């Protein structure tokens, strides 16, 4: 049995214009977002590179008790080969004994950078998750219940904004060694960086709670909890996802900065920021100790930023309108191209146009 609707779809194909048909067929929100995300070249490259970095970091030195394919651990102190210079060769590709070089006591920089990347990425993820969870909870309660709850929660948020995260980090730096090290640091950083998320979620909830579907759910007898989590929250997922990625990219920079001034990850743990901090004095003699961790921070952060940008575009309902306008603009501009040399180039090169220009 086919429903009349799907039947209609089948009997009225429009082979000449495949695109309208695609638009007629209902796409789920997730599907639309995914499609738009895949259209964003920067974001796709970002996510691929990020996954590659993650695989490299995890597989090379292994995770916890599981060994990786790289021969040295970040704790080993093998003999210094070649004065500690990096042995990495691109043409022909050849890793050599110590691809990223060795530090003063002979520790393998590749293993240390990989370990640092692991730690930095996990801190980033934990901060993202904790901050998102707290921010959503507080923002959603404030936006949904309004009144006194909102006033108290938002004043509390304002208070947390004022407290400098360096102070929180200083407290953790001294206590974290007994309490689980970096995980504790990450969780605590999450606990002070949820404020932006709370404000955004509250704003979204304030408008969403006035919509008809919320009234309908309430009439159907849904509890507050059910309305918040099942009805409103899925509608706010765009803001939340985008903000979480931005949170993560700033978390990795915060963590490295804290480690740099000695208030973040404490030795013997390793993070990328700590590696730079330990090696900056040796910049003139062993610059590779400084380049590689920095490069990895930049790559990770850049990828997360691009993914966040792609998500923002994908979730933005106006994005489609912009695209349409762009196509229209190209058609409208086409005759003028004969007169203006600028349009020629625009059509020829990147397919770009200036919708603002008449």
């Amino acid at each position, binding site marked *: 049995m086919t429903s009349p609707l799907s039947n209609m779809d089948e009997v009225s194909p429009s082979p000449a214009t495949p695109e309208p048909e695609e638009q007629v067929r209902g796409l789920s929100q997730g599907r639309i977002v995914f499609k738009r995300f895949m259209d964003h070249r920067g974001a796709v490259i970002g996510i691929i590179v990020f996954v590659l970095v993650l695989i490299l970091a995890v597989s090379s030195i292994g995770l916890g008790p599981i060994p990786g394919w790289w021969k040295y651990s970040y704790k080993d102190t093998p003999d210094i080969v070649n004065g500690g210079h990096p042995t990495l060769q691109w043409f022909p590709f050849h890793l050599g004994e110590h691809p990223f070089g060795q530090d003063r006591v002979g520790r393998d920089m590749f293993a240390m950078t990989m370990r640092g990347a692991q730690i930095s990425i996990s801190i980033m993820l934990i901060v993202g998750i904790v901050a998102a969870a707290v921010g959503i909870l507080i923002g959603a309660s404030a936006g949904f219940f309004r009144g006194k709850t909102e006033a108290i929660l938002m004043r509390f948020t304002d208070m947390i904004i004022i407290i400098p995260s360096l*102070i929180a980090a*200083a407290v953790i730096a001294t206590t974290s060694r007994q309490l689980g090290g970096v995980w504790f640091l990450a969780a605590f950083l999450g606990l002070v960086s949820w404020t932006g998320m709370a404000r955004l979620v509250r704003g979204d909830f304030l408008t969403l709670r006035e919509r008809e579907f919320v009234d309908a759910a309430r009439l159907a007898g849904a509890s507050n909890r059910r309305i918040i989590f099942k009805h409103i929250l899925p509608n706010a997922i765009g803001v939340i996802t985008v903000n979480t990625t931005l949170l993560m990219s700033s978390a990795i920079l915060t963590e490295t900065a804290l480690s740099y001034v000695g208030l973040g990850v404490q030795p013997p743990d390793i993070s990328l920021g700590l590696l*730079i901090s330990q090696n900056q004095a040796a910049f003139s003699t062993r610059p590779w100790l400084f380049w590689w961790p920095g490069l990895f921070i930049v790559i990770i952060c850049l990828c997360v930023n691009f993914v966040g940008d792609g998500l923002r575009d994908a979730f933005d309902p106006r994005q489609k309108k912009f695209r349409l306008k762009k196509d229209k603009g190209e058609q409208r501009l086409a005759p003028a191209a004969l007169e203006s040399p600028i349009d020629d*180039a625009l059509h020829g090169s990147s397919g*770009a146009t*200036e919708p603002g220009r008449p």
Partner: protein
Amino acid sequence: MLSYIVRRLVASLFILLGASFIVYLLIAYSGDPLASIRSSNSPSKDAQIANRTEMLNLNVPPVLRYFVWLGGAVKCVVPFAGQCDLGVTLQNQPVTEALGQAIPATLQLLTAATLLAIVFGVAIGVVTALRQYSTLDYSVTFISFLFFSLPVFWVAVLLKEFGAIKFNNFLATATIAPGVIVTIALISGLVWAVIVAGTWRRRAITFGVAAAVTALVLVFLSATKWFQTPSLGPVVIAVTGVAIAYGATILFAGLRNRRALYSALICVGVGVIAYFALQPLLENIGLWGLVGLFVLSIAIAWAIGHFMGGYDRTQSIRAAVLTTFGMGLLIVIDQFMQNWQAYSENPLVRGRPIPTIGSKIPGLNGDFWITGLDTMTHLILPTISIILISLASYTRYSRASMLEVMGQDYVRTARAKGLSERVVVTRHAFRNALIPLATIVAFDIGGLIGGAVITENVFSFQGMGQLFLTGIKNIDPNPVMGVAIVTGITAVVFNLLADLAYSALDPRVRVKA
């Protein structure tokens, strides 16, 4: 309106109290302030411990100690309550005094950086928005994401290595290697080709011309050892001045407004004459004399624009004033350059003018130009690192805001009226695009005073951030509290100002009275 402000201020007071309480407890519980004494082998150990316990009231539990601190701090804001007292640092220096030294240093470091970042960021953002989806747009987007992802300390260390140490080495010979000239010329050609855009032929021509001109200039600079004895000279000043005059006229009035163009060009002429006339005076000038000259020149420019008139006086005045501003800047830069050799050959500088740390060379004596150069060479690297990091966000914000505005109906209406694109962009779109930016800028300025902790740390700059950081490291609550409270108050005040500015700029937004 007034009741709104009062309510906000009262709420802010409670927020500040709560936040300061939490900060105090956090710093008090972050470690043992006596640890450094306990680990020492000094014979007077017990006396020192007793001394410090007394000084910091360590016998009082932290919760109560906060109220002792608060009792002193309240005197700073309540009039006639007595001497302002924020406690003392571990070195027995009053915190108010330490703050008094740190705040000007931080403002000195961050004001120029923030202003430049805002001006360049907004300009770049607007240009990329006007040319959305062009090569320029994509490149700027990528570069701003890259800058956004750079750890500031990493950039700072790189700048110290390449901007200071390597550059000072280069200054010893001041000759540029041919390979470097070719590379820079190619890069400059590429940048110009991307900026100018157009047909492939036009791009290729731009690329060739820009690369050739850059190469020639670099060869000239290298051959004359310009970097050791830099100067602009009247010719360069005049040519640049004419370019500025045309730019200002295009921006404010359009080239069809000949009166505006002529008033700007007259300003260039006056500026060149002033360059020769003022040389002896500028030699021995002080800061206030320079400020006075600047005000005077702006007044003259205003008068020129006013009397040249035209159908719209304000346009002529604006073009004239902006041109004169540029000319004044050029003349001052030239004067600094003339003193460059004297500065760099100073026995305290020893031919390595770009320092890596500090805010001034102690014991350096000299006139306004020498000390000015000293300050500038110390500020340049931290300023660059701060600009690089914050430029990205301003670019992104202003681009998004400009794109939003360019899609509005009133922009279409303005075009439909037949206004030129210049008027549409500068009068209708740009001004409205600045409204959301005002909030962000106010917020950023509020955060300025807290200092760039990391940047100050890398460059050993004794500002608020450094005071804060040493306080945290030594578990010294009073300076930390001092910094936190100053930052907190400015943040709260500028937050309020941002909201008020928003409602003043955008009539659609009204504060809840």
